[in-house]
């Protein structure tokens, strides 16, 4: 039975780290600076990434992108009804999907039992837009107007076929939970450009349903916990428990934190658990956020013209449009990674009606965000990404009628688009076959996308690693190639 309670504060992992690598590091450090071994004062903030600089110190190469706004469309928007125009599907509407096209592709349990897989042409009109001639359906009239700013990848593919693994895969590079999300890697590697706000902020459209979103999509995994995404909620308390309770003024809060700092410093000297540092960094961040967050969330200085541009929805806090305005405000204040989530794209049935609602909620604000960033000069070093976790099938799940059908999950091809710094404008990469089922030109894997994103931020995705459980991990695991064709 263990009775040595003074030792139980070590976690098993910290103990092992300290006794193996720790001793080595200690002896190395004392060889370099023998007197340092006896120095009593250890600064509370020791690891380099506790300050403004990230773990990398500086990027691997000059970045094209200084911040990212990722408009994640959770549930998987139907590429066939929005971007990827396939007249053949309309021509062969209702016919069974040829086995030769389907190949060995697995189907979900939701449609694998169907007697037939009737191909479903889109019910929306497609037109070419802009000088680039990009095809867009009339579901997105506003985005159609700015296609010359956009870079489409029509040949995305993923490995997962269900929402949660697919979202987790997109956000963390692994289908299994537990790895750090993209924003956390960026925060860890590159640090902050604004010490008063977190590097990684998450905004979720409120009152949307469908597939659940888990906070692990913006989790820090095994990275120090101050790198996790901070969710700003709509309403009175954007960040829960951030405001001082009644009777506590900022001055006494400051004094309390200073006192806590001193205590935790002693605690850290005794125990040496790095999470103490992470927690103290978080306390300090929260203190600074007590002034910076209300300033961000107070949109009273936005003009009517701005609201008109983003759409009337943007006046209602918590909508996608309102979040787009917030995203721009955060970008103006140099928050590095701003991630929006908009749920509800999972149209297994009733697609023609449901997708209209989704498109209406996102189209105008997306276009407005890109236009707004551009006129403010922010598109010089900001990247906007719009896309879901996989695509949707070219055949109908359930009964196909002239006005109604559904589409099942389809990992083999889907479309995302980007706009902003470092990438080509009015450009389309890759193509799918005439059935919209397989990629026939320049397949882009999720890891390739992630590698490209990191590349734009000045990070070599193969060199940003973190050792956990005995091996070094990176966002792209052992895969990923930068998609050079889209770089400008």
């Amino acid at each position, binding site marked *: 039975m263990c009775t040595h309670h003074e030792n139980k504060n070590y976690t098993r992992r910290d103990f092992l780290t300290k006794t193996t690598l720790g001793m080595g590091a200690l002896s190395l450090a004392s060889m370099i600076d023998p007197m340092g071994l006896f120095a009593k004062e250890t600064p509370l903030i020791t690891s380099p990434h506790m300050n403004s600089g990230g773990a990398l110190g500086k990027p691997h*190469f000059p970045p094209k992108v200084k911040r990212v706004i990722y408009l994640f469309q959770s549930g998987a928007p139907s590429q066939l009804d929005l971007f990827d125009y396939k007249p053949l599907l309309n021509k062969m509407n209702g016919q069974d999907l040829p086995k030769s096209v389907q190949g060995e592709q697995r189907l979900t349990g939701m449609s694998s039992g169907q007697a037939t897989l009737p191909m479903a042409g889109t019910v929306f009109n497609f037109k070419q837009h802009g000088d680039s001639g990009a095809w867009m359906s009339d579901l997105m009239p506003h985005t159609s107007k700015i296609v010359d700013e956009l870079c489409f990848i029509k040949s995305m593919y993923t490995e997962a076929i269900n929402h949660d693994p697919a979202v987790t895969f997109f956000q963390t590079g692994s289908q299994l939970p537990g790895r750090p999300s993209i924003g956390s890697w960026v925060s860890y590697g590159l640090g902050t450009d604004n010490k008063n706000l977190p590097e990684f902020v998450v905004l979720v459209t409120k009152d949307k349903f469908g597939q659940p979103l888990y906070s692990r999509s913006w989790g820090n995994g095994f990275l120090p916990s101050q790198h996790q995404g901070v969710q700003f909620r709509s309403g009175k308390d954007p960040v829960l428990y951030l405001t001082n309770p009644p009777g506590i003024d900022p001055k006494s809060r400051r004094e309390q934190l200073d006192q806590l700092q001193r205590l935790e410093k002693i605690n850290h000297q005794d125990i040496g658990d790095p999470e103490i540092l992470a927690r103290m960094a978080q306390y300090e961040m929260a203190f600074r956020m007590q002034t910076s967050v209300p300033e961000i969330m107070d949109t009273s200085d936005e003009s009517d013209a701005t609201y008109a541009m983003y759409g009337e929805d943007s006046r209602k806090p918590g909508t996608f449009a309102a979040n787009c305005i917030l995203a721009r405000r955060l970008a103006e204040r140099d928050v590095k990674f701003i991630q929006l989530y908009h749920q509800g794209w999972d149209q297994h049935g009733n697609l023609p009606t449901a997708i209209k609602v989704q498109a209406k909620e996102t189209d105008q604000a997306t276009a407005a965000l890109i236009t707004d960033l551009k006129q403010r*000069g922010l598109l010089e070093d900001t990247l906007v990404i719009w896309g879901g976790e996989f695509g949707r099938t070219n055949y109908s799940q359930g009964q196909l009628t002239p006005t109604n059908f559904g589409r099942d999950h389809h990992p083999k091809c889907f479309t995302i688009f980007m706009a902003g710094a470092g990438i080509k404008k009015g450009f389309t990469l890759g193509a799918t076959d005439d059935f919209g089922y397989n990629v026939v030109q320049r397949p882009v894997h999720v890891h390739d996308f992630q590698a490209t994103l990191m590349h734009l931020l000045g990070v070599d995705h193969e060199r940003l690693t973190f050792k956990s459980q005995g091996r070094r991990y990176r966002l792209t695991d052992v895969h990923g190639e930068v998609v050079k064709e889209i770089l400008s």
Partner: protein
Amino acid sequence: MNTLLAFDFTNFVGRFHPILVHLPIGFILMSIFMEWYQRIQKTTKLSSLISYGWLLAGIGGAFAAFCGWWLGETGLYFEDDLFLHRWMGIAIVLISFVGWWLKKNAENHANSLHQIVNFLVIGLITVEGHLGGNLTHGEAYLFEYAPESIRDMMLGEKEAMTDLSKADSVVVYNDLVKPIFEQKCFACHNNEVTRGGLNMAAIDSMLVGGDGGPAYTPSNVSESELFRRITLPQKNIKFMPPVGDPLTYDEIKIVEWWIEQVASPDSKIGDIEVAESIKPTLLRKYGLDTNPKPYYETVNIAPLDSVQITALEQNGFTVNVLGGENPLLDVKFSGKALTEEQLKSLAPAAAHITWLSLARTNVKDEWLSAIASFENLTRLQLEKTAITDQGVETLSGLKHLEVLNLYGTQVTDSCLPTLQKMEGLKRVYLWKTKVSTANAKSLDENEKKLAVITGQG
């Protein structure tokens, strides 16, 4: 059709060489070991099996050499490498017969003679086998995975590879085209072997051509025999290369581009205008990014002293090094209350600052002279400040300035001529200024290299 049959015969017989060649080696080694064994055992008379071993080795070796001769004739091997292997092989066959004769009457000869022949043959076989291995697998094969020190010693210093990371300095023929020819054509078309009369070792000899005329016509792919041959249907008797891997799509594209576009043998990518159609191939096959590099990546300058950087930070600036080997700086004043002294404190970093943001500060027109001579400044953010046309005028000498953000400032139409004169300027942001939309638009349309971004609302 006869030539085709003969050709096949060569290949057919030749390819038995690797099968046959190992058997006689075994015979010889076995015979030598038997002999040594008997000598150690002090056997009075050597077994006659030993001499028969040598005889079988000679006969087997003769067959192997015969096939090997034809394999060499396929033209897939370089004459230089082949010569030694071929004649040493024949020598070993002859020595095997000598060995047979020697061992048949072993007592008539001195033990030392026996041992000389034995060791000679073992030595020859070892070298011969190694040469054969090199011919089949390439010269680096044996030591490719050796520890680095051994590898460097055995393979010597690698030929200096062209640095493909600097696209501009890549010589199209030497660095891109010639390696393709080396790999796929040189075995039959070189200075020694000139099948069809064609020597592809140099551009001159290609232009002289072979039996059918010049190998290619510069700037004219459709009149180029070489290009026709490599793009024929593969079953066609004239298809090149007749054996081995055909040229890949990207390789064919490179050859086509070279014939069509590249005039001089010394042309570098930087010297010629790279056609859009070949860019993806250059990028895919060689990782050559032929898109023009941003100016800030071409500046060569020593990094700024860290003391200076700290001084800037103490003056209220956020300072970031661009990254990697690039020492240029991205500097931003965080906060509003900028003073002229603070702005002047940037002077030691004048050559290093390439991105500068004074946005949302109280910077004044007359202060801007402090940054007017920043030679490597490419991006300047002055949005939401009180800057007027006068301030823009002050900046007109920034010849590498590419991006100027003036959104939300006091500038008027009068700044447009100044902007037009700034030769490096690519994008200027004029939303929410006093510049009229019509004038901004006309500047945007008249000046091709300059995009004037206004906004809505």
